[in-house]
């Protein structure tokens, strides 16, 4: 059975994961909004409500249209292409049913990539949150020249990820081994990216170096909203530094921690440019992430339909993780 290809499914490959995540967020928000709306309609007059509803509908329509064109439609198309054998070039292809999905669950490369992404995301999130808070606490001190320091720590965020990876690639290959040899540190005598054990940490190091900058600024902003009186009162009551951090600082930072958790987890689950440029998935597949695998299958190995199916599965995994994360952070929210 032959079909003629209407338009590309590339959007689907790229957006499926993000779409499913954002759908959950939007659904949750709309449920909350719906509840408020219902309360409101009991109180207000019917005609007033109708005109308000029309206004709301008019406001929502442009967004809904754009959302449908750029997100819903590609996902629907993605589902369609994922059950074909399309190679990305040919204008003719066959429907093959769930063959691609069955192959994915048998493919060790895919399960390895999922495992890599999960481990990587946990490590990235922990490093970014802990380091971000620590740096923000230091940058919140009233010291001379603190603005300069703040600018310095924010600097990595304005660089392009690709430039950063190229620079670190050279540091790993040419600088660190020299230091490793001088100080006789075994694992540093070769590039961190050369060994299957250290390569994931090498990629993580670069990602954390750059990825911690923005969360630090967010944490710093959070710290500055905490009233000084609370610390003074705690000090008078004899609370030590840890108790002050645990019972004053941390509760105030919870909303920001939950935002940072979502942002960092998303970037960890979809990591692409760092692995693509630093290791290209190597050595021996040790750093092959889901996004890299999808890209490779589509653009290097010409298995477009298969890569779209992978994107679908990855999208569902990311959606499940995001749902859990959002429900946890909703419970933790301080109003």
């Amino acid at each position: 059975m032959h079909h003629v290809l209407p338009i590309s499914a590339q959007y689907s490959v790229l957006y499926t994961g993000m779409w499913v995540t954002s759908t959950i967020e939007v659904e949750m928000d709309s449920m909350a909004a719906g509840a408020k709306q219902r309360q409101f309609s009991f109180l207000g007059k019917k005609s007033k409500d109708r005109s308000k509803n029309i206004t709301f509908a008019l406001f929502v329509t442009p967004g809904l249209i754009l959302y449908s064109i750029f997100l819903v439609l590609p996902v629907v198309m993605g589902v369609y292409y994922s059950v074909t054998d399309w190679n990305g070039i040919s204008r003719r292809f066959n429907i093959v049913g769930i063959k691609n999905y069955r192959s994915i669950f048998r493919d060790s490369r895919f399960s390895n990539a999922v495992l890599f992404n999960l481990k990587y995301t946990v490590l990235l999130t922990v490093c970014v949150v802990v380091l971000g808070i620590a740096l923000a606490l230091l940058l919140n001190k009233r010291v001379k020249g603190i603005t300069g320091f703040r600018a310095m720590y924010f600097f990595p965020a304005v660089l392009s990820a690709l430039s950063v990876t190229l620079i670190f690639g050279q540091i790993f290959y040419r600088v660190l081994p020299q230091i490793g040899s001088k100080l006789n540190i075994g694992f540093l005598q070769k590039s961190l990216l050369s060994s299957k054990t250290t390569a994931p940490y090498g990629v993580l190091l670069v990602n954390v170096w750059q990825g911690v900058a923005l969360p630090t600024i967010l944490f710093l902003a959070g710290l500055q909203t905490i009233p000084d009186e609370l610390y003074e009162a705690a000090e008078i009551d004899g609370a030590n530094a840890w108790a002050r951090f645990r019972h004053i600082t941390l509760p105030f930072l919870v909303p920001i921690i939950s935002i940072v958790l979502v942002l960092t987890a998303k970037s960890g689950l979809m990591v692409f440019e760092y692995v693509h440029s630093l290791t290209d998935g190597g050595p021996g597949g040790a750093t092959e992430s889901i996004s890299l695998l999808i890209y490779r299958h589509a653009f290097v190995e010409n298995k477009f339909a298969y890569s779209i199916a992978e994107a679908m599965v990855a999208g569902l995994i990311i959606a499940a993780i995001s749902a859990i994360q959002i429900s946890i952070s909703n419970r933790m929210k301080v109003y």
Partner: protein
Amino acid sequence: MKSRSVVVLSIIFSMVFGLVGTVTAKQVELEFFLLKPEVESVMNEIISDFMTEYPDIKVTQTAVADAGTVLLTRIATYDMPDILQTYPAEDKYKHMFDDGLLLDLTEQPFLENVADSMLELATYKGRIFALPMTLSSYGIYYRTDIFEELGIAEPKTYAELIEACKVLRANGYDAFALPNRDVGNIAQRLERLIGVLNPKSYEEFAKIAAGEMKVEDSVTIRTFAEMCLDILRYSTEDHLGLDYESAVADIVNGKAAMMISGTWMLSTMQKSNPDIAVKLIPFPSPLSDKLLVPVNIDTSFSISGDLRDPEPALKFLEYLSRTEVAQKYYEVDGNVNMIKGVVFDKEEHMYMKDLMDQGDMFLTQVNFWPTGLREEMRIPAQQLFIDGDVDAFVQAFGEAINKLYNQ
């Protein structure tokens, strides 16, 4: 009087704009999509010369980073460029021709300007869908000055190559700069060197896929693995941390004396050091004393099958097939140019050219292997360089062959 001058002026205006309008309407616009970024400037010059000769045709060059991916995306979205570079021996482009995405050029008179042997390589199912211009070749670039200084003769056999490696290592050089961090480079090396060992490897692989032969019995695959481990002993110590650019830098800076690569690398080396003393020689096979050059059709030009009127695009291809234009292209590109009458004078590649003229060449294996086999072997090959496990590599190769031949 006033009204008369207004009428006259408006007539003049309408005539002038009408004329401009006619010229604009007649001018045909064509897009040329470039795959090889290193020739962007010379292609711009050629296009501008072409437009001087054909003022009614406007050609715009599209040169983007990661052009292969961009082209694939554009094809997938029905946005074919009018004229594009292709690799006519590769499966991907043959599929495009099968699907009617590329114009059949078989009957075009300008193909007579191309050497017959080249046309033969570019023929698919008796048809030709590209103007094939250059052949790239692959082998070992070696620093002639370092070899001279140490009194090492140019290696003609595998034993001589290993001997040269030993002398280089003893004198503090890395014999080879092996960029094993770069999996794309590994995959290409695998495919070209397997061809050196067995230019008909695809026949052997087909037998393995059909169950007529065991992968463990494949001398080609096993020898490839052992050969890689042999030369690894004399190469960059941290080869898994070395990327392509750094490897080229190691050759230019004289840290390493040899690198396995293709003719496209010469211009990169010469950018860093225009006087670099290098020469490209074929990789000697441990299985045979005959030196063979792996070649691939490099620069080729095709026309979109979607064009309503292909005439202007055909004129552009005819222009590119002229000897003086091809000569201009060759000066920058450096590959063996198969347009009749082009003078080849790159000393660094002369030896390869002589072997090619004698017919001691074969079309590289990627053109015969199923799409994706080379890429599928990236991880197992890198794994071989990590643990040196030849048996595991052979097994992985067998699995990849079975998967891709039987899909």
